[in-house]
């Protein structure tokens, strides 16, 4: 799931509250930093009970889009494999939790399946960063995140 809410912060600067899969974070943080955008983390791997959230509601597992697969059947089957792995990993994480392992260990195991909440604040305007939404050199999911942000900004400006 990728979600964005745009608001106007101090000095009338546009601020985004974003939710996206944690596995995108390293890549997005790098691109954001090189475009003067600072990220403030609302949740993080150690200090947030990802395991309880996912165990109680498996639909909250982050699942990538498999639309690049040649047909719908394959895409659905790939999603099932992903969900099955999520359940296995949640079981392993549960096992670690029962043994008394710390959140930093348990939550790291769940990185591929968790989401992160981030507030993004611009330093040099959003145009340069959002222009990358059409660049084929940028990973597909990052492009998707940038598209969601771009549409969100367009709605906010209307």
């Amino acid at each position, binding site marked *: 799931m990728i979600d964005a809410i745009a608001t106007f912060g101090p000095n009338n600067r546009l601020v985004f509250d974003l939710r996206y*899969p*944690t*596995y995108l*974070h*390293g*890549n997005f*943080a*790098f691109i*954001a*930093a*090189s*475009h003067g955008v*600072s*990220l403030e*983390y609302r949740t*993080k*791997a*150690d*200090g947030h009970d990802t395991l309880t959230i996912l165990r109680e509601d498996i639909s909250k597992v982050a699942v*990538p889009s*498999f639309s*690049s*697969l*040649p047909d719908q059947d*394959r895409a659905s*089957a*790939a999603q099932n*494999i*992903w969900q*099955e*792995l999520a359940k*296995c*990993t949640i079981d*392993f*994480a549960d*096992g670690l939790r029962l*043994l*008394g*392992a*710390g*959140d*930093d*260990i348990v939550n*790291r*195991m*769940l*990185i*591929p399946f968790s989401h992160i909440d981030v507030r993004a604040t611009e330093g*040099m305007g959003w*145009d*340069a*960063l959002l*222009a*990358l*939404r*059409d*660049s084929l*050199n940028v*990973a*597909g999911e990052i492009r998707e995140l940038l598209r969601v942000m771009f549409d969100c900004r367009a709605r906010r400006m209307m």
Partner: protein
Amino acid sequence: MISAEVICDSISEAGKRLTTFKLRYPKFIHGESKTHRVISWGNEGGYIVMEQEVGLMDDKHLSRNASSSRAVPTRKLLAEIRSGNFAVPERWGKDQKGMQAAEDFSPDVPCQPGKEVSELEFVQKVWAMSAMSACEHAQALLDFGAHKQLVNRILEPYTHINVVVTATEWDNFFGLRLHKDADPTMRALAVAMWEDRQKCKPQLRKDGEWHLPFIDKDTEEQLFRRSFKNGVFDRDWHLDLCRKVSVARCARVSYESFETGKRSTVEEDLPLYDKLFAGLQDTSAPLHASPAEHQARPDQKVTPFARTGRITDKNGDFVWLQHELHGNLVGWCQYRKMLPGEACAPLPEGFAP
């Protein structure tokens, strides 16, 4: 496995040290950004969490390039994990209130009374089983024809990442990350970096000389043969080629070619540079300028009068001659800042200025 190697270390005549590291560390700390300092009070177990920015990816003083999930073949990652060379936490801490684990699982305490397996071995075994389970599912997705970018995601907790990092300002980086309350894996990385940097003696670069990561004697010799114009050695042309090859290798975070797995040749590196900087010729294409942040030449200290032509009241002070070319470095002019259009992507179609 955590490793940190200084691959280029320079000092200018003005005394500013510029260091480039090649790092390898568990990918799970790559996107993390904060450490947590906990102050406990009272008998009720209350605590305050203080957070500080200590990530690698959002420290503005650091120039970085990392190996991408899209570039590493899944089969290579699977082989690494299956051979037991998977990423693990630096410390196996027990759960407790607050963010830092005060107590670790012990190798001397049995996981259950009467069992031979220790609690530490047991926890490590669960992590390893989880890694193998991820491998099986990744293999299934791969066999289905899913792109390595997607498949590699599920292996992230168990894989390592290679990163090249360059900076002049390291004090705050080390101050925060060497602290005992920093994340143990991040701290282990910082310790490895600190130790390797302490061992190194930086090379003096005079005015006009360049800090060029991944350019060794072999590469210089290869490029030397290409640097003749009309039978005469052209030093500027030679430097330009060296910078380009260095940029390509920093983008790849390696001497090795993606395609062959062997040391890249300049015939492979120069086209990669052209691809990254296609925007210099075609203004509609974006520049991929970040790998050009690792190459720099020393700036000079001058009096304010020499730079501005005006006498200031800051008697005895100095200013940098070309501080507008420093970027996120101090006292060094960054190659990126010498490239036209490096900080501004072109507007997409339909958006006239």
